[in-house]
């Protein structure tokens, strides 16, 4: 039945896995810092959200890498992930094509959605990845993907992600209930970064831990403290394995950190923790731990950084070199076309 546990802090995760988790986090961070640079490059004079090569809202996940890295390390391309308006870390950790994703963010014809979707609406049928700009509304479709997987007798699973703010939405609770009732192979993930735009968790959520809410639906609830990627990896491993064995859904909440504003351009005047937020950056902290464990030195660190940089710059170059969609085709893809698949 219901278990609410905090995994121990002494990890026995293998060293290879730990370096992979590190690589994933570095790739995500490198990617987002490059997007940050490109996003702000042409917004001036002043800041006009509609201007530049990357227009519109931009929600970056910097600080939340441990959640995506720890969870997705247990998934294959055949598993589904439904993410949120803040999707890049899960998209990358789940193995989305970096070039096609970047081209989408740049609104190019070579993008995942041929420039129609944008950064909050990334759909990759190859990795069964999707996301939504409407809060908590990625939970219900995950049920259907899990339903399809189990009906077909596979051990594939779906992972559905929300923030702690979204866990107060009706769709969250309806989905937990239905998944529990029908034993669907879903791992529900809640990223508790403490903020729903400007509203602190204390002003939005009546219970201290969303893992407690799992009890209401008779499913396991686990909360990982401290944005700890090893702990996420271990906790997620059990929950994913459980779902694969056909033992039903579970809920994993991770206490994580939003290093940047809710969206780019957010002055964060409401925020009380800004002075010290960078001290809690999970990547330097993990680096230090890996060094202590003898798994990382300067040379390896540089190599990981360089690899990430090369992949990211190649993706950005691909996006920039790609053609823009033809405005005459702005209303295509409302309905399937003959032979379009």
């Amino acid at each position: 039945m219901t278990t609410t546990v905090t995994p121990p802090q002494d990890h026995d995760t293998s060293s290879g896995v730990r370096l992979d988790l590190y690589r994933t986090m570095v790739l995500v961070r490198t990617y987002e810092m490059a997007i940050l640079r490109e996003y702000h490059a042409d917004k001036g004079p002043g800041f006009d959200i509609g201007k530049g090569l990357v227009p519109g809202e931009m929600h970056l996940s910097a600080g939340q890498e441990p959640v995506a890295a720890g969870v997705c390390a247990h998934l294959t391309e055949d598993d589904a992930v439904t993410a949120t308006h803040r999707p890049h870390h899960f998209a990358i950790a789940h193995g989305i094509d970096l070039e096609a994703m970047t081209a989408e963010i740049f609104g190019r014809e070579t993008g995942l959605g041929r420039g129609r979707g944008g950064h909050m609406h990334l759909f990759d049928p190859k990795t069964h990845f999707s996301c939504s700009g409407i809060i908590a509304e990625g939970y219900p479709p995950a049920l259907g993907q899990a339903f399809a997987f189990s009906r077909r007798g596979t051990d594939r699973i779906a992972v559905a992600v929300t923030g702690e703010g979204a866990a107060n939405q009706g769709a969250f609770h309806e989905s937990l209930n239905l998944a529990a009732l029908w034993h669907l192979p879903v791992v529900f993930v809640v990223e508790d970064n403490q903020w729903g735009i400007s509203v602190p968790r204390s002003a939005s959520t009546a219970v201290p831990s969303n893992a407690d809410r799992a009890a209401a639906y008779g499913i396991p609830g686990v909360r990982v403290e401290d944005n700890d990627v090893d702990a996420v990896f271990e906790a997620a491993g059990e929950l994913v394995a459980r779902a694969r064995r056909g033992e039903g859904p579970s809920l994993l909440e991770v206490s994580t950190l939003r290093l940047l504003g809710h969206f780019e351009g957010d002055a964060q005047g409401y925020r009380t923790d800004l002075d010290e937020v960078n001290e809690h950056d999970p990547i330097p902290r993990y680096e230090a731990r890996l060094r202590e464990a003898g798994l990382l030195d300067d040379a390896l660190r540089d190599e990981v950084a360089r690899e990430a940089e090369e992949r990211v710059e190649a993706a950005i170059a691909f996006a920039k070199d790609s053609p823009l969609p033809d405005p005459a085709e702005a209303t295509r893809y409302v309905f399937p076309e003959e032979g379009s698949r």
Partner: protein
Amino acid sequence: MTTTAAPTTRRLNTAKAMAEAIAQEMRANPEVFYLGEDVGPYGGIFGSTTGLFEEFGPSRIIDTPISETAFIGLGIGAAVEGMRPIVELMFADFMGVCLDQIYNHMAKIHFESGGNVTVPMVLTTAVGGGYSDGCQHSQTLWGTFAHLPGMKVVVPSNPADAKGLMTSAIRDDAPVVYMFHKGVMGLPWMAKNRRSIDVVPEGEHVVPIGKAAVAREGGDVTVVTLSLSVHHTLDVAEQLEGEGVSVEVIDLRSLVPLDRETVLASVAKTGRLVVVDEDYHSFGLSGEILASVVEADPGLLRAAPRRVTTPDAPIPYAHGLEQAVLPLHDRITAAIREVLA
């Protein structure tokens, strides 16, 4: 009837004008309160509550969890008890998660009770695209609200009307949906439109709901429009004036009730009609305006009317694609030329 305390030359942006009406009504009536996501210290994502939290504090300017069904329903219940809630749905696009409370409850209770129960509530929400925010954050959707009976629907285009319509909406005993286009708010982080900052009466300012404005007089063609499209149409009208074309611009200001008289009087004068509407083309406001004219007197029109709308397709993300579907200057100019040809 527009009452103005004293002549003024003070200029405000639309967001501040809207907040000023709310502040004045809150000072006058302790039953008025405002709630929604990020309306407190943040001041509303689109500036709708700028400065209100500082004056009225957290008991009357209330941040909510992301639970639209619950907090819009709460507004309804409080209104039923005689309070005067103003509830913000951050983007009109989010109505899907809470539409039942809006159209089956807020809008029907008065009718179901045979007129014995009133719901004096204001539902504010942001609409509109133009800054590449993708198809879940760029819709106008006022036609949907207007189609569902039982709620008044107002759509200011300029700062003075934003204040005057808000005052009326708060005082109205019916539920009023107050839809503001992000592009008319005069926000620092969006493309500036010179008409989004203008003179606003300082004292009590009431603009009656259901009365269209003649935003510009002209004799050759009537353009019926609303919200941000009024700004675009006025730009076009100014330009065409140089060519000797005289455009009359009707700013509807309100969809429910709809001021058909002002539209008919103008079309009777010009004999030519263009409707500019940022909502989807079919089954909406633009068709309603044409139908109203033809039903009243098919002989009024000397040329086939034209509609400049958003086509029946989701609004694309990529800048060039989005510009192609929105009703902007070129398409408005072309439609005017067509009805004059």
